[in-house]
């Protein structure tokens, strides 16, 4: 048995190090270390609850609006406030813009550059992948960065700026839109659609959204594997058999995403044992057995505590270990689409289990599914009608905000007494996925997904298979610990 520590693990958001125990060329055990703690749950204590809207987006520079949205929802549920239709539509648009930009950044900047590494030089697709996806110098990042920046002008209109807006309010949006701005937003979305259809997919969004099985996906890919970037990935993934890499527990949760009139664009739920179940939020506990945190028992988030203990023996991460009814679950775009019931992901996971391929396909699919929804929400906005309700003083309340960030289920649990925050607990998506072992010794989702991977013990740096699996979760480490 030999042990290696992989860090700093780059092209993820924030700090990450992974310890691998390997034997006979395989990973026997993995330990995921989130090495940085800032203590937002402590910083928020004693604050006026509305001030949370300034602090929480700054937990994370990449999921900033998601954090704002969870806080705004926690405040709104606590106060029994329902935003006017324009406010709800603006909130959907802002969150969707962040989520889609994150999917795009992950694919082009964080994930694909690994296929342009020297280890793959002998593969038939290497030359194409290298010129297209090489970190910093590849042609794809040059194509994508200005498109992403231009798409983020959506935030200039809806949120003032990104990251770290204050426009996302419990009563709706502080930014009303005029007709001229609505029209400019329409043009920005159309530009983004054109990039997705021409450069990323090589096909209409509707055609991508309609892919309903692995067989259909492979047939579709074969016609365009050198003409567009997502088919390029599929071709590489098939060659490297990435559908066989990175299975965790195959239990998936989603809090449900994008409120519509009486429903959500993507439903909430738990997918396990090949069946959809209702999600029981009251079954969530956060375990701290392997975390540098004081505490003896796993607590429900509305009773949770965050008490750092940096010298704790046997702990190895600042991340807590959330469990649903004691079980390790996975969250993210794949989980969201498994719960929502998209036939392509249900088929992929039914055949192979969760994998590097399935996680990336789910993200790309969401680009095709959510942009048309954004176009529809924008169309429904009525300039001149209200965007925001005023908020009165808050004396006592308990609120819960459950939303879907790009990386999955994000929850805020808020307790206010005498006008001050007395408890604020946050469980971020990567807290679920990258959790350490719990009191029963059960490893977290990524820790399980890494076990069994082939690694060359003489290889100096991080094995590429390990890098693919880790990055397939699109981890956000700054949210993880917060």
């Amino acid at each position: 048995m030999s042990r290696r520590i992989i860090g700093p693990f780059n092209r993820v958001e924030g700090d990450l190090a992974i310890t691998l125990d390997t034997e006979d060329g395989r990973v026997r055990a993995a330990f995921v270390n989130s090495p940085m703690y800032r203590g937002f749950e402590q910083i928020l204590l004693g604050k006026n609850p509305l001030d949370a809207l300034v602090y929480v987006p700054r937990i994370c520079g990449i999921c900033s609006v998601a954090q704002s949205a969870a806080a705004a929802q926690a405040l709104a549920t606590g106060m029994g406030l329902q935003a006017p239709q324009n406010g709800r539509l603006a909130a959907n648009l802002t969150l969707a813009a962040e989520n889609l930009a994150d999917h795009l950044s992950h694919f082009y900047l964080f994930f694909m550059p690994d296929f342009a590494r020297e280890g793959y030089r002998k593969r038939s697709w290497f030359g194409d992948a290298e010129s297209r996806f090489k970190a910093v110098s590849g042609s794809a990042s040059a194509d994508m960065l200005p498109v992403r920046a231009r798409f983020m002008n959506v935030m200039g209109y809806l949120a003032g700026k990104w990251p770290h807006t204050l426009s996302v309010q419990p009563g709706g949006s502080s930014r009303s839109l005029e007709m001229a701005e609505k029209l400019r937003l329409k043009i920005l979305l159309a530009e983004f659609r054109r990039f997705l259809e021409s450069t990323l997919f090589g096909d209409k969004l509707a055609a991508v959204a309609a892919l309903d099985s692995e067989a259909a996906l492979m047939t579709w890919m074969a016609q365009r594997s050198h003409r567009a970037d997502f088919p390029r990935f599929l071709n590489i993934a098939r060659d490297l058999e990435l559908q066989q890499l990175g299975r965790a527990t195959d239990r998936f949760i989603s809090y449900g995403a994008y409120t519509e009139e009486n429903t959500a664009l993507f439903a909430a739920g738990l997918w396990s044992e090949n069946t959809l179940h209702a999600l029981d939020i009251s079954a969530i506990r956060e375990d701290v057995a392997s975390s540098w945190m004081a505490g003896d028992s796993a607590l429900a988030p509305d009773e949770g505590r965050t008490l750092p203990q940096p010298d704790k023996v046997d702990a190895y991460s600042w991340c807590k270990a959330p469990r649903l009814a004691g079980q390790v679950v996975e969250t993210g775009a794949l989980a969201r689409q498994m719960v929502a019931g998209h036939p392509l992901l249900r088929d992929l996971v039914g055949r192979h289990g969760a994998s590097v391929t399935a996680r990336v396909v789910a993200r790309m699919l969401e680009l095709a599914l959510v942009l048309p929804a954004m176009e529809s929400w924008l169309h429904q906005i009525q300039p001149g009608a209200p965007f925001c309700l005023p908020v009165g003083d808050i004396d006592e309340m308990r609120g819960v905000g459950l939303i879907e960030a790009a990386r999955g289920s994000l929850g805020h649990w808020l307790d206010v007494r005498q006008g001050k925050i007395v408890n604020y607990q946050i469980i971020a998506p990567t807290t679920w996925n990258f959790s350490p072992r719990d009191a029963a010794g059960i490893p977290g989702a990524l820790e399980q997904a890494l076990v069994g991977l082939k690694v060359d013990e003489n290889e100096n740096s991080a094995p590429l298979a390990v890098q693919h699996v880790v990055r397939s979760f699109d981890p956000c480490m700054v949210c993880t610990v917060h």
Partner: protein
Amino acid sequence: MKDNFQYLPLNLLWLQSGGCGGCTLSLLNADCRNLLQTLKDAGINLLWHPSLSEQCADEARKIIEACAGGELQLDILCVEGAVLKGNNGAFHRTQSREPMMNLIERLTKVARHTVAVGSCAAFGGMTAGGCNPTEACGLQYDGEVPGGLLGEDYRASNGLPVINIAGCPTHPNWVIETLAAIATGEMQEESLDVLRRPRLYADHLVHHGCTRNEFYEFKASAHKPSDLGCLMENMGCKGTQVHADCNIRLWNGEGSCVRGGYACIACTEPGFEEPGHLFNQTPKIAGIPIGLPTDMPKAWFVALASLSKSATPKRVRENAVSDHQVITPVSKRTRLK
């Protein structure tokens, strides 16, 4: 320096410490043809950046240690995020268990220029909020007090103190232009203001270019989020005092905080994370905001405010408390004088 104003590119190493990564993400919003090429055009050779570079783990460590050891010339060290000093650095360690603050300190000893990207790295920022559980501070400031991790007397090997690109987050162009100024030798002591922020953006006030100016002139004020009126009197806006050019060079195309319908919370200033009052509420004494424009006599401000309030047109007064124009400016059919 070579002929034709061509400069040798400078080696840049970017590290993330106790922050959110938002200044990097904001940089990706840069309105340019290709950010990575723009950095080259600005005279920067990116040695390693945690979000953008290929090198992972051992490969990255080699670059960082080569800089620390002097084998690789470190022209510019950019640090994003606060320094977490608490518990002897235990809140943030590298994979070799070295406290991040020690690694930063080793690198600042060899760096020709040291740049704090964002208010966390400059002053401690958001990470130093509340009870400051990690004892977060800036590279050379702890809030507005000089010192921080490196001490008041620190100078990078080119002679300059830490350059504070304060902001939460930083505007992409504040970063690009600061790096370009360093690369062309135009970043001097006098290029920095009293808090060592580059004057290229800190010589302006957020108030400059504010689209709510007509409401400000008449003290026609917003009362709730989404109202069109001036945000200074009730909603906590500090734009008339805060140094930054947010309403001159806009964010994400046509945005800024005040254009987004919410207050300037002074994110380029030290200590903004603990204002001592609600962020969205203006502190007042006897009904008068205590944070008035810094270089205007208070009595004059109060006198003018009361005068202009009484002269406020109905249009401005009613629009100020609505989320859209309920009364539009009168159109005259004659030629305007």
